[in-house]
């Protein structure tokens, strides 16, 4: 058995490209087989397909494998993409960049640079120390958690590529514009004094060349780490979603989260900002809200504010930013999300 796992493990190392091809074929075959499989399973169960319970079960049994499969695929591919970008490399790409172009580049790099929320503050300091402008640094810090592979994979799995792409574009827009606005406000002196006193460092682009098999290892490591961490949230989220799907009457949400209620977007942002959960936990709930008539812009604004801003994040950032800069940061990002919500509801809706 030990020998078997050993050889199964070394196979992708010795033949990385055939392994990738084989994995892709298996993945697509599984994905195509999901619908008939989940229908067959619900068919065997002793519940009425039309009943509340049957409707909820069908939702749960079909969505869970679909979401998990898509998530695993996207996280694996992103793990490989991430191996091309380190924070050190991103920093040297951004150092000394003019505002404007710098904001666009920072937000875009925020998507592909591996980022862990517990490293947010050391990363922030490292960027500022190397001469990345404050506004550009903030563009990166807004985009990195908000536009992440888990959110995009789940949006794609549940609502299709149009919604996922809109989220990507609007998330980037919020990060770029918010960072640019804060840069214009010239608030560098609202950094904590000890941060401003740190010596400047020369940014050095790390040039480590990885082989394909090492990149595959990186992809597998991120699947183990990310999927291993978020799967309970996804199960819980889909279960809640299934409950709402089966039991809450159609259009229940339309009256107070529909497009006609102008105050719904600010309310959604106001509730979402202090809340803290990851993309995985919030999306299945979002799906159920949408299915019952809530407007897409309102729901996306809620989701963005939950993921991008949170109370724990503000507490951590307080160690490096003075209160006025924190308040500006939260205010500018929240207004950006608000505008995105309205744009979706009234222009694109």
């Amino acid at each position, binding site marked *: 058995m030990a020998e078997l796992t050993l050889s199964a493990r070394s196979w992708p190392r010795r033949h990385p490209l055939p392994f990738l091809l084989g994995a892709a074929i298996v993945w697509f075959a599984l994905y195509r087989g999901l619908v008939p499989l989940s229908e067959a399973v619900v068919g065997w169960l002793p519940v009425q397909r039309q009943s509340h319970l049957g409707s909820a079960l069908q939702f749960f049994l079909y969505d869970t494998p679909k979401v998990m499969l898509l998530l695993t695929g996207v996280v694996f591919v992103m793990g490989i993409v991430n191996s091309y970008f380190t924070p050190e490399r991103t920093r040297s790409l951004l150092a000394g960049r003019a505002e404007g172009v710098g904001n666009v580049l920072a937000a875009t790099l925020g998507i592909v640079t*591996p980022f862990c929320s517990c490293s947010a503050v050391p990363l922030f300091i*490292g960027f500022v120390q190397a001469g990345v402008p404050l506004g550009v640094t903030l563009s990166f810090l807004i985009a990195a958690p908000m536009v992440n592979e888990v959110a995009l994979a789940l949006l794609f799995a549940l609502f299709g590529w149009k919604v996922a792409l809109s989220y990507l574009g609007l998330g980037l827009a919020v990060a770029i514009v918010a960072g640019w606005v804060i840069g214009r406000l010239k608030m560098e002196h609202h950094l904590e004094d000890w941060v401003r006193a740190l010596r400047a460092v020369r940014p050095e682009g790390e040039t480590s060349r990885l082989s394909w098999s090492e990149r595959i290892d990186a992809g597998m490591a991120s699947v183990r780490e990310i999927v291993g961490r978020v799967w309970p949230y996804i199960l819980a989220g889909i279960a809640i979603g299934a409950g709402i799907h089966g039991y809450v009457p159609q259009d229940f949400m339309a009256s107070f989260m529909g497009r006609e209620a102008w105050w719904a977007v600010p309310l959604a942002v106001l509730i979402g900002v202090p809340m803290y959960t990851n993309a995985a936990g919030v999306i299945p709930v979002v799906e159920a809200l949408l299915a019952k008539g809530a407007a897409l812009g309102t729901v996306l604004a809620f989701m963005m504010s939950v993921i991008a801003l949170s109370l724990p994040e503000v507490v951590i950032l307080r160690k490096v930013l003075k209160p006025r800069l924190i308040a500006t940061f939260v205010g500018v990002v929240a207004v950006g999300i608000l505008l995105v919500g309205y744009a979706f509801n009234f222009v694109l809706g």
Partner: protein
Amino acid sequence: MKEVKVLGTGCGNCRATAKLIEEVASARGVEIRLEKVERLEEIAAAGVMRTPGVIVDGRLVHSGGVPRRQAVEAWF
């Protein structure tokens, strides 16, 4: 006696890293003094952008995520 520092703000990965280092060191019979550095000022001064960072005898040997066991074994 090796001086080992784990730099991080106290997240799960930092604790896992410290535990792994202790395990490997005792398995190999290497004496170490392990210190956890949690103050942001010190983490920043060491130039660590991704936590946890690991410093062995004054040299930064790792940064970002829990290191692999083979990597830790190579330090001792």
